């Protein structure tokens, strides 16, 4: 442990030791066991388990739906953030406080209520069904659930940036004769990009691993509406521990890469805005 900054302060050994102990017991060792379990398969077997057609279909749905959901989040998130920051209207504070509902609401409750809303007899499904749109038990249902759980990420990333944006720049652009549209596109938008991207990545990462809300609203049909985490549970329930571990390692690798990407993004963002 080289170069401590504040040598006077005590407790480095104690706190660091405790941190590493808990981290090892709760996170690292179980993760290591998962890794070992997956590596017990031969390389060919691992590859086979990780890339069965059913697994590929599950990845496709997981990534496709997560991407779609994160895109919905980005578009609506940017709009909502803009409205919440720039306009004053009755109920603004209330809506602002409600944005975090998906963070606080248990995913099972979210899944339950979304499934009941979008089922063909539900408050919303009733209007969509005649149009041939089925929100529940379809790929669309997966997107709906994922968009719900990921919604706060973009709004909460973009809001502070929008808040701190220097309005003078916009005024300058306006006085120089730029139309409002042009000002927003060329002055405001570029400074929002990093925050928007971070929010998008956070929502996407969350969506990849989401389980609770999706199992209620998706049909869990192999090849069609089965997401990767559901397939892991299926593999486990079929006594196929190796298969479950292989899929889990793939998912874990992806989440880990995303996490590193997000950390880089956040560092870039904070440098960008400081």
């Amino acid at each position: 442990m080289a170069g401590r900054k504040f040598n006077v302060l005590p407790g480095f050994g104690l706190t660091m030791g405790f941190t590493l102990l808990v981290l090892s017991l709760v996170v690292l060792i179980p993760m290591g066991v998962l890794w070992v379990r997956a590596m017990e398969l031969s390389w060919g077997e691992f590859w086979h388990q990780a890339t069965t057609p059913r697994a590929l279909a599950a990845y496709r749905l997981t990534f496709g739906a997560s991407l779609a959901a994160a895109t919905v989040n980005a578009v609506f998130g940017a709009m909502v953030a803009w409205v919440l920051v720039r306009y004053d209207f009755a109920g603004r504070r209330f809506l602002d406080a409600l944005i975090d509902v998906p963070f606080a609401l248990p995913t099972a409750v979210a899944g339950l209520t979304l499934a009941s809303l979008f089922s063909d007899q539900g408050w919303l499904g009733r209007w969509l069904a005649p149009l041939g749109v089925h929100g529940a038990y379809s790929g669309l249902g997966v997107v709906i659930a994922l968009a719900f759980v990921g919604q706060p990420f973009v709004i909460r990333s973009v809001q502070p940036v929008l808040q701190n944006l220097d309005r003078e720049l916009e005024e300058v652009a306006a006085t120089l004769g730029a139309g409002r549209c042009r000002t927003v596109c060329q002055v405001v938008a570029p400074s929002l990009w990093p925050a928007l991207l971070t929010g998008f990545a956070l929502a996407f990462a969350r969506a990849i691993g989401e389980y609770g809300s999706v199992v209620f609203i998706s049909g869990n049909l192999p090849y069609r509406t089965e997401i990767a985490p559901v397939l892991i549970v299926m593999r486990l329930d079929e006594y196929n521990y190796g298969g479950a571990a292989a899929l889990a390692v793939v998912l874990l690798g992806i989440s880990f890469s995303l996490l590193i990407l997000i950390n880089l993004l956040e560092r870039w963002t904070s440098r960008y805005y400081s």
Partner: protein
Amino acid sequence: MRWTHGAWHLVAAAGISLATASGLAAAEITLLNVSYDPTRELFTAYNRRFAQDYEAETGHRVRVIQSHGGSGKQARAVIDGLRAHVVTLALAYDVQAIADHHLIRPGWQSRLPHASSPCTSTIVFLVRPGNPKGIRDWGDLVRPGVGVITPNPKTSGGARWNFLAAWAHATRVLGEGEAAAVAFMRRLYGNVPILDTGARGATTTFVQRGIGDVLLAWESEAALAAREYGTGRVVTVYPPTSVLVQPTVAVVDRNVDRRGQGPEVRAAAEAYLRRLYSEAAQDLIAQHGYRPVDAAVLARHAARYPPLKRFTVGEIAGSWRAAQKRFFGEDGVFDTIHRP
């Protein structure tokens, strides 16, 4: 920092309540019955009666607690360490899987009458009122535009029986060869919009969420749904042929003989299963829509059970082990028919 003290008090209280909970448990015997999905109501009733009778006769207080889920999934949980004293699963194969992991001693199936199966059942159709799609037989399920609800055979026992009943129709009734039968199954499962993990989830999907035109259900589950919702919402249809369903029970030897437990645990667990064959329990079984194995009780309730040809697993696939490997194993028929 008063709240930190509060938190520690909570932890201490938690510890104490745990300690008292285990102290109480010593006074009475707690049995865990790990079961499949559609037996919730049956065992709720049976557990109450068993506890009364057993205490009256032996003086031992018994509390039976339940865990329900898809049969295969439940067997997996027991194999992974869920401490079931008895298992009551949808089919013998799932009990055998537990025995294969040395939790149940070999020869378990001959320890209780009727191959350890205290009741039988069959698979029937549940349709919407008036049967608008005119569903009478298995062949009607593969028509385009018919929504079929059945759970996932990988995790549900009932779903495996559903599969076998449909397969029996294709091979035994229509006399199709393997390829044509696979094609039949592919069309059937092409009509399935949702695969729940257990039979109960499938019933919920069909009845409460209103999805699909026909539910492939346990005879008992169909009766329950009709009772819960009235025949105005669902109607039972008996196909001409189906499958002889044999739910299977066993004492989990490893868990009843665990050190630190007296012999009264095993005694209670064995009595719990043996009494399923008693006349009173067989009557209860009949009331919950299963078919009792006791001939006299069966005769008394004969009106509940319309006759239909029930093929056995042996007739359909030779044995459960063979059926499991051929139909539901990795790259088995079920896997192939879903591949686009």
